[in-house]
C-alpha cells in the first residue's frame, strides 16, 4: 500500500476520534459545571466565526458587500436559505464586473 493510502487511513482515524472525542470526555462527568455549559453554548458561534473571519479580512469590497446583504436580510427576518442565496448570487454577479 502506498504512503498516500496510509496518510489517508491515519488521517481518517484521527478525524473520527475528534468527532467522537468531546462526547467521550464529557460523558465521564456526572454533572456539567454551569461555566462549562455556558462555554459549550458559545461553541457554534465561536468556531463557525473562525471559519470565515480570515477570508473576510483577505477579501475586498465585493466580498464585503455580499456579506452585508446577508446581514440586512437576517435582521429583516429573512430565512437562512434566502440569506445564503442572495449573498452568493450577489457575489457571483459582482465578480463578473469587479475582479
Amino acid at each position: 500500500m502506498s504512503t498516500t493510502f496510509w496518510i489517508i487511513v491515519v488521517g481518517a482515524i484521527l478525524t473520527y476520534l475528534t468527532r467522537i472525542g468531546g462526547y467521550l470526555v464529557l460523558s465521564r462527568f456526572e454533572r456539567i459545571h454551569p461555566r462549562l455549559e455556558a462555554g459549550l453554548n458559545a461553541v457554534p458561534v465561536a468556531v463557525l466565526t473562525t471559519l470565515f473571519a480570515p477570508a473576510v479580512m483577505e477579501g475586498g469590497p465585493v466580498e464585503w458587500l455580499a456579506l452585508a446583504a446577508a446581514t440586512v436580510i437576517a435582521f429583516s427576518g429573512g430565512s437562512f436559505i434566502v440569506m445564503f442565496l442572495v449573498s452568493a448570487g450577489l457575489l457571483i454577479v459582482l465578480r463578473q464586473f469587479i475582479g
Partner: protein
Amino acid sequence: MSAKLQATPRSEFLEGAAISLPIIVGVAPFGALFGMLAIENHFSVSEAMFMSVAIYGGASQMVGVDLFGSKVAPWLIVLSIFAVNFRHVLYSATIGRHLARWSLTKQAIGYFFLVDPLFAESERRVDRGIRLSFAWYMGMGIPVYISWLIATYLGAVFGPLIPDPHAIGIDFLLPIYFFCLVLTFRGRAHWLPVAGVSALASMVAYRTIGSPWHVSIGAFAGVLLGAFLPPVPSEPDHSEEGTL
C-alpha cells in the same frame, strides 16, 4: 415546542433531507474545489475519492493535499489534518448532550457525519426546543455526504476544464455559508461579543501564527469569553420557527 409528537421516523428523515438542500449548495462547490486541488497536487482520482470517503472534512482534506504537493513528511501531514479537525472535539462535546439518548451504534454512526453544517443545524434545532432524532439527523447527513463524494469526483475529473473558478465564486461560497449560519445564532447569549472576539483572535492568529491554528485559537477565545461572561437568559431562535 411544535406538533412534533406525531412525527414518524419517515417524516423526520424527509424533514432532515429538506434541510440538506441549502447545505449541499454551500458545500458542493467546496468538494469540487477539493477534487481539483487534489489532482493538481498529483493525487489520482481514486485517491481523492478515498480521502473524501474516509476523512470527510473539507478544510483538512485541502490542507492535506496541499502539504502532500509540497512533499513534507507524512507524519506532519497527518498532524495537520488532526489540527484542522480538532474543532470537532468541541462539536461532539456540545451536541453530545443531546445525542446521549441514541443507542451506541447510532451514536457511533452519527458522530462520523458530524461536519460543520450538520453540527450547526442540530444546534439550531435544539434552540427551537425540538428533540434530535437519528432519522432527522441522517436524513440531513446522508445526502450531504453523498453530494460531497459526487462533488469530489466531478471536481477531480472536470475541474481542470473550468476556465476561471474565481469568477463563479467557488473560493468564497463557504465563508458566506458560515457567515449566514453564525447570523442564525444571534438569539444566543453573548452572540455578538463571542463572534467579535473569535473573529479578532482568528484573524490575528491567521496573520501571525498561520493556518490552521487560527481556528483553534479563535474558537478558544470565543468559548472562554462565553464561559466567563455573566449568564443571561437566551432568546429563542429567530429563524424559521416551527415549520411544522
